[in-house]
């Protein structure tokens, strides 16, 4: 069916989002904590250490974990209030089935799973194996990510599994693989304060990776210069030595413009380029066209800013590049990243203390979840699914014939298009809220309605779960045990604080049970997540992301272990490329002659303004968790449209006015926030909210040809003042998509 069973306000009244504001037992509760569990935040890729306070199998608060070296007790507001997702009134505690005209009603696990299995079998028997698809997430532990990939290839034998890291890390991943042969940040964070110049490209560090701010400021206190590229003056840009308010999509103008100057002035390492790289001359020929004037046109900033950036970046002995979604969320996201990291490679400032680069992972397991084989094109160990040797090896670990492993499937956006086109009829999703997080949300909602059967596993009834036929109550991070791999490539240990409430189950148990009912129980016979990790170690052995030498004991003893760690005696690899050897067959790093090209949709007469999206500090991704926490909603209740006073004046818009932001695909009505800290040709709306407040109603369904990342960061819109909205959705609480 996969249609909304009833009106959204009725579903919201039953399942939220509603706000949780007071810890269980109230603020004045007495009594001692029964235990304090050292674990990690469930939200972003920083994976900060945190202690959860537990009483009577309930998480009642937190305590900073000052001994964990990465964040030393520091937390962002999401981390501080994260425990408020526990004991939440919206928590799903029983399997649910869609009831037409009513909403959702409970049913037993046995009935629910019987239905799930019979629908999977019916759809696969009627339309072929690939007609049943799986969408997963990068907030899953390594164990669960591994399990989902194996479940798709072994239990369902469908090619069509992909994950929401497709919306996050894939451009960075592809670029690093093309240039260096390894998809991982090259350095530990401890290298940041040792660099003499730092370039932050398209990363709102203060709001999306707040803990990293301290590393940047340490570097500055040590005398480093800080360069920031962003269409908006973000909190770190305010105190940067050089802020370049680049036009969204114009980043290559800055990078190549800088490189041309660096080549001319001798600020590259010729010896390093000659000895350890290939392809420089071809790259340099492209770069040569990026005169300051041309670079300035592409970047949409004065040429002098690009010259200054080259003068800051070129000469110092050490440097560090940080990049994130601002340059990655483009239909040329891979090329943007390649151009950025070639600024690192051409100076030879990599593989040494204080020298290197990092991509800032967005999701909690943004790094690990893309290594364990739940991407449509990969098997565990970051192995290519089309590589015969890789297939043979993994088939051996799994005990299945190599031929039974499906070929490469569809990535997230094409997969949704195949659903829309009726080629895919069934969907199992976990840890993914595509009606809020995929671009062109009206299209996504229409696609979901075409599914014959949809089963959703989650701990809250997300906006996407409202389309499901069956909803299975899974587990929060703190209700299960496992590992994640943080932004540094450091594998860390999430400890179980409490057991899942009611009839909710650990995610891995649900998946193994479905596999068993599909007749594949012998391949999914695990007693614990640790069992899964032991198999993952073996499956990754010899791969690029080699976890074979990592054990949970070693993780606990060393506060995490960085891969590659090929054998039990190996200490792990915090810093890559120290030996100047790169992971290509020729051992060299490869320059690529990437060139700027326009974005899929540029502003025109009808839609004259650039639209861009991003995050705010108190919310996380599609908001399934953070829009349910009262203190985080209080901090940033509803999305607002940031615009420059010059644009506002032209459009006759005052601060707090309601505005309609409209693209060819859809619109939002939100309040205006008039600020001088954004380019006058650009407006910004954060994307954490659903329905009439969803920035992704506006964004374009264009993807990078290599990484398939959607182009969230630029499309064309028009903006006009409008009356306060009066439709039923706008009358809901802000956490559910209403307005204040």
């Amino acid at each position, binding site marked *: 069916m996969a249609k909304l069973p009833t009106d959204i306000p009725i579903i919201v009244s039953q399942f939220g989002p509603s706000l949780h504001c*007071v810890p269980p037992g109230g*603020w*004045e509760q007495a009594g001692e904590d029964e235990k304090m569990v050292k674990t990690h935040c469930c939200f972003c890729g920083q994976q900060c250490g945190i202690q959860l306070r537990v009483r009577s199998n309930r998480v009642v*608060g*937190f305590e*900073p974990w*000052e001994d964990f070296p990465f*964040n030393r*007790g*520091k*937390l*962002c*507001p999401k*981390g*501080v*209030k994260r425990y408020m997702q526990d004991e939440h009134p919206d928590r799903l505690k029983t399997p649910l089935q869609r009831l037409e005209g009513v909403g959702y009603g409970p049913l037993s696990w046995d009935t629910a799973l019987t239905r799930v299995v019979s629908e999977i079998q019916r759809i696969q028997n009627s339309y072929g194996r690939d007609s049943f698809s799986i969408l997963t997430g990068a907030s899953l532990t390594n164990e669960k990510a591994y399990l989902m990939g194996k479940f798709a290839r072994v239990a369902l034998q469908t090619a069509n599994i992909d994950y929401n890291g497709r919306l996050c890390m894939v451009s960075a991943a592809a670029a690093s693989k093309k240039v260096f042969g390894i998809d991982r940040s090259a350095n530990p964070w401890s290298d940041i304060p040792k660099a003499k110049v730092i370039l932050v490209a398209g990363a709102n560090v*203060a*709001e999306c990776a*707040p*803990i990293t*701010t*301290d590393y940047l*400021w*340490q570097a*500055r*206190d040590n*005398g480093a210069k800080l360069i920031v590229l962003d269409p*908006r*003056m*973000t*909190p*770190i*840009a*305010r*105190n940067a030595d050089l*802020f370049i*308010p680049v036009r969204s999509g114009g980043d290559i103008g800055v990078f190549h413009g800088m490189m041309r100057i660096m080549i001319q002035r001798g600020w590259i390492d010729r010896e390093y380029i000659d000895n350890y790289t290939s392809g420089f001359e071809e790259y340099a020929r492209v770069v040569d066209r990026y005169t300051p004037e041309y670079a300035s046109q592409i970047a*949409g*900033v*004065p*040429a*002098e*800013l690009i010259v200054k950036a080259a003068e800051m970046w070129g000469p110092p002995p050490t440097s560090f590049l940080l990049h994130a979604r601002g340059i990655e969320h483009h239909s040329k996201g891979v090329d943007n990243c390649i151009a950025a990291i070639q600024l690192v490679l051409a100076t030879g400032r990599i593989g040494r203390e204080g020298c290197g680069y990092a991509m800032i992972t967005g999701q909690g397991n943004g790094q690990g979840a893309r290594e364990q084989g739940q991407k449509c094109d990969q098997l565990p160990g970051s192995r290519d699914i089309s590589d015969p040797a890789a297939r043979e090896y993994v088939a051996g670990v799994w005990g299945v014939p190599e031929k039974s492993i499906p070929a490469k499937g569809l990535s997230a956006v094409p997969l949704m298009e195949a659903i829309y086109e009726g080629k895919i009829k069934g969907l199992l999703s976990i840890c993914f809220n595509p009606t809020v997080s995929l671009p062109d949300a009206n299209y996504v909602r229409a696609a979901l309605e075409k599914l014959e059967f949809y089963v959703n596993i989650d701990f809250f009834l997300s906006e996407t779960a409202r389309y499901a036929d069956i909803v299975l109550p899974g587990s929060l991070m703190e209700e299960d045990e496992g590992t994640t791999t943080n932004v540094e490539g450091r594998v860390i240990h999430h400890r179980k604080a409490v057991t899942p409430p009611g009839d909710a189950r650990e995610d891995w148990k649900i998946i193994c049970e479905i596999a068993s009912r599909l007749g594949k129980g012998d391949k999914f016979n695990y007693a614990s997540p640790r069992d899964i990790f032991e198999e993952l170690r073996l499956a990754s052995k010899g791969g690029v992301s080699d976890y074979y030498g990592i054990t949970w004991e070693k993780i606990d003893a060393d506060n995490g272990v960085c891969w590659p760690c090929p054998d039990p005696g190996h200490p792990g690899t915090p810093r890559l490329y120290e030996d100047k050897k790169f992971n290509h067959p020729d051992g060299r790093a490869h320059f690529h002659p990437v060139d700027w090209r326009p974005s899929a949709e540029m502003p025109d007469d009808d839609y004259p303004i650039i639209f861009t999206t991003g995050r705010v*500090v*108190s919310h996380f991704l599609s908001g399934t968790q953070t829009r349910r926490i009262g*203190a985080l909603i209080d*901090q940033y209740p509803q999305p607002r449209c940031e615009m*420059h*006073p*010059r644009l506002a004046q032209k459009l006759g818009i005052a*601060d707090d006015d309601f505005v309609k932001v409209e693209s060819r695909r859809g619109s939002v009505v939100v309040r205006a*926030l*008039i*600020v*001088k*800290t*954004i*380019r*006058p040709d650009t407006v910004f709306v954060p994307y954490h909210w659903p329905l009439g407040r969803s920035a992704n109603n506006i964004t374009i369904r264009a993807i990078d040809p290599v990484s398939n990342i959607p182009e969230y960061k630029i499309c064309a819109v028009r903006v006009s003042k409008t009356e306060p909205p009066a439709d039923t959705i706008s009358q809901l609480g802000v956490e559910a998509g209403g307005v204040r």
Partner: protein
Amino acid sequence: MSERMFFIDYSRCIGCESCVQACAECDTHRGTSMIHLEVIQRRESVQTAPQVCMHCEDPICARVCPADAIKKTPDGVVQSSLKPRCIGCSNCVIACPFGVPKYQAEIDQMMKCDMCYDRSSVGKKPMCATVCPSGALTFTTMEEIQRTRRGIPINSWKFGAEQVRTKVYVMVPRTVEQVSVERVQLAPTPAPLPADPYDVALMLEEKK
């Protein structure tokens, strides 16, 4: 180890409100935040500034309290008003040069930052300075702050004729010895600061 002290570095603040959220989680004032995060002028800039109680050596709030409700502990921490004594007159609210005490009408009492006394009195860091991700709020030793920061910590203030020394330090450029506030200036800041230092539109104009 030498005594740990509280340092504020306004230039590091990113406005994330971790301090505000964490303050409400501290056992001494659960549910109510005692720290102020000032958004300076959002239209003009993203600048923000955290304000904890500065814990004056000779606290003005205590001096002006007619009910003698505000006490300083021997270790120099100025406490919230004592519930049985506070008459809710707000003298302290008006007198504090840092704008810290707030009158809470629902409990008819002044409440303010007490440096998480339950934590700091037993050797732990205050909650805000533990979680602050930018290091704008730091609880560490004088040696450590001098070793790791470009600026210098000072705790000497002048408000008109009033000299104030505080237990809490603020980081300032090396040339500054005292923060001196002669008068509150309501007109825009005159040169040499650029008229509009954070206006992105001006940054996009070619310099002639």
